């Protein structure tokens, strides 16, 4: 592995579009010279970074193997493809797209089954009645096994299904399924219902870091640069900048901080406009307060980036990597 930071991102579909949009918002343009057929790319203007275009399930595996430093993938795949995910990976940031649940769904006709406890009874009864175990169609073998073990259900068999899992009960290749769903409409269309306590995992796309990769100084510096921009954009998106000239800026800043969660990034200096960063939802209330406090006009503006010393994405990652180094770097 070269010293470069390698980030794996989905090579196609909506996940790819969303990922590009996510990075673009932070001012990071992903370049893919040669178009869709090229499996390596870069980030415009950033040296020391390589982009690997992979399929979503490959990304989780590569993160686990340590052949990429970070990747964009769903939590479902992190938990499905990686043994001991908490140890092998670090969740850097939730990306806010790709929400979906991994669920247990049974035929609607099973009016006697609403919970996992019901399913446990049916599974046990089914074996006695039909002389074989009930079959679950799923591609989530590991997640299913763990979830069913937690519920003490042993009487089942997994039928691995690569696609169109929701059709398995109707086709007769399985009795029920474990699958991922966003709206549940595919399940409904196939006459399936989700059990009351049948949500195995709430998944979302995440930026995930590998704890088994070798992190060179270059890679770490590049990760910091990227995460700084992402954090700066996120900071900027969630706050508005408010400027107002008030008589006693120190006292006003304190009240604004306590009441509306504002910060005063440049301090409060007598005779100069007070600059506050206010959570976007509280801007109107804060402006009212400032006028009450004597400001003749209150100016609110939207920010592009807010860089801060501590980075909520990078600092925890750095800490884990330092801890790993202290515990003995297994990858070297």
């Amino acid at each position, binding site marked *: 592995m070269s010293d470069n930071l390698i980030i794996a991102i989905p090579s196609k579909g909506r996940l790819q579009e969303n990922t590009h949009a996510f990075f673009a918002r932070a001012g990071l343009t992903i370049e893919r010279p040669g178009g869709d057929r090229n499996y390596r790319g870069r980030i415009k203007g950033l040296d020391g970074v390589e982009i690997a275009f992979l399929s979503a399930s490959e990304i989780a595996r590569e993160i686990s193997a340590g052949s990429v430093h970070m990747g964009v993938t769903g939590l479902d795949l992190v938990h499905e493809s990686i043994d001991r995910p908490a140890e092998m990976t670090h969740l850097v940031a939730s990306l806010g797209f790709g929400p979906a649940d991994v669920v247990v769904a*049974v*035929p*609607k*006709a*099973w*009016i*006697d089954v*609403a*919970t996992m*406890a*019901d399913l*446990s*009874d*049916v599974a*046990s*009864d*089914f074996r*006695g*009645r*039909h002389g*074989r*175990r*009930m*079959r679950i169609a799923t591609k989530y*073998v*590991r997640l299913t*096994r763990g979830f*069913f*073990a937690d519920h*003490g259900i*042993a*009487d*089942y*068999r*997994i039928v691995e299904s690569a696609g169109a899992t929701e059709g398995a*009960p*109707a086709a*007769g290749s*399985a*009795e*029920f399924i474990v699958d991922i769903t966003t709206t549940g409409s595919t399940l409904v269309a196939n*006459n399936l219902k989700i059990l*009351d306590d049948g949500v195995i995992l709430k998944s979302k796309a995440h930026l995930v870091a590998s704890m088994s990769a070798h992190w060179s100084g270059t890679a770490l510096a590049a990760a910091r640069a990227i995460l700084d921009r992402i954090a700066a954009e996120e900071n900027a998106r969630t706050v508005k900048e408010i400027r107002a000239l008030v008589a006693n800026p120190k006292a006003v800043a304190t009240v604004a901080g306590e009441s509306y969660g504002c910060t005063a990034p440049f301090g409060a200096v007598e005779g100069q406009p007070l600059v506050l960063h206010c959570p976007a939802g509280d801007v109107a209330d804060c402006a009212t307060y400032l006028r009450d406090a004597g400001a003749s006009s209150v100016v609110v503006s939207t920010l592009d980036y807010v860089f801060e010393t501590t980075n909520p994405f990078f600092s925890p990652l750095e800490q884990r990597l330092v801890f790993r180094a202290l515990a003995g770097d297994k990858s070297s």
Partner: protein
Amino acid sequence: MADDRLDALAPLFQAGGYHHIAPPILQPADVFLDLAGEDIRRRLFLTSGQDGLDLCLRPDFTIPVARNHLAEGAAARKAAYFYSGLVFRQRPDELGEIHQVGAENVGRTDRLAADADMLALAVEAVDKLGGRAPAIRVGDEALFIGVIEALGLPKVWRRRLRDLFGDRKRLDRAIERMAGSEAAEKDARLGFLAALEGADPDAAHAVVEDLLSIAGIEAVGGRSAGEIAERFLEQAALATGAGIGPQAAATLTRFLDISGSLEDAGAALEAFAKDAGLDLAGPIADFRERAKLIGERGLPLDAITFAADFGRRLDYYTGFVFELHDAGAAIAHPPVAGGGRYDKLLALLGAGEDVPAVGFSIWIERIAEGAKA
């Protein structure tokens, strides 16, 4: 080192009429997944044959030996086998190869004597391998079955409890649930269920089946409308509190808590049965007879521990089970040998009927560890 000790072992088995058997290392994975459940998959070394058949490296000897037995003649014929070799299980941070020796005895209808012989043979074999005088622990699922039958629990609960026997924690949780009202966790369907309860069972069954067929539902997901209707009504009975009540639950817990030396266990069980007003004469008589036979084979009954809640969750184990622990090690330490009666295994493998069978396996490496310590 292991080989020398095994040389000493073969004459012991042969003297008892046991024949050496070496079943194939590669086995069809399906058999193990069907018998032991999907949970075993993560411990199997899986591969596939040319025709796409899933194969695994044998994770134990009992099932491969039973398959050989079935392949070579009538299922119920008498046969006695001993084996020595590797079994393969995925284990974190440890080698997946495990050396086991053991014996299986098929077809003896004098079950209690066969149980006692098997335990005595296991103790002698561990001794020959250089293990220190082991602590012995025994259990008997037949007693547990006897108790839940005698308590007159609803069928659903008997099945639930049987499924969990051998896993005390889960079993306790289930008993707790049984003592409380099942209704508490049910939902809006309760009213409908209650309306059905008490109706003529056949009529209610027909109503539910009709409802399903009106909705255009036939066999979906491998379960027939009749099957769904039946269980729906079963729920109705439970939901309206076919009240099992805390009494039965407390009795069951009191039974599971019984433990002590094998010498005193018979009396303790009788006292329990009398106190709880349960008829357990059959299983207790068998239990006492077996204990007597074990004593006659020279094993000290006062040094054998009986625990009422000790069993295996594999459902082909049907009765007597035992474990040998290194005398120096804590009981939480894995046993150096384990065995038991598995009368259902051959039937599940296709024999067509239950065939009496009992056996044990010794983990060679655990004896080595114990001897070193």
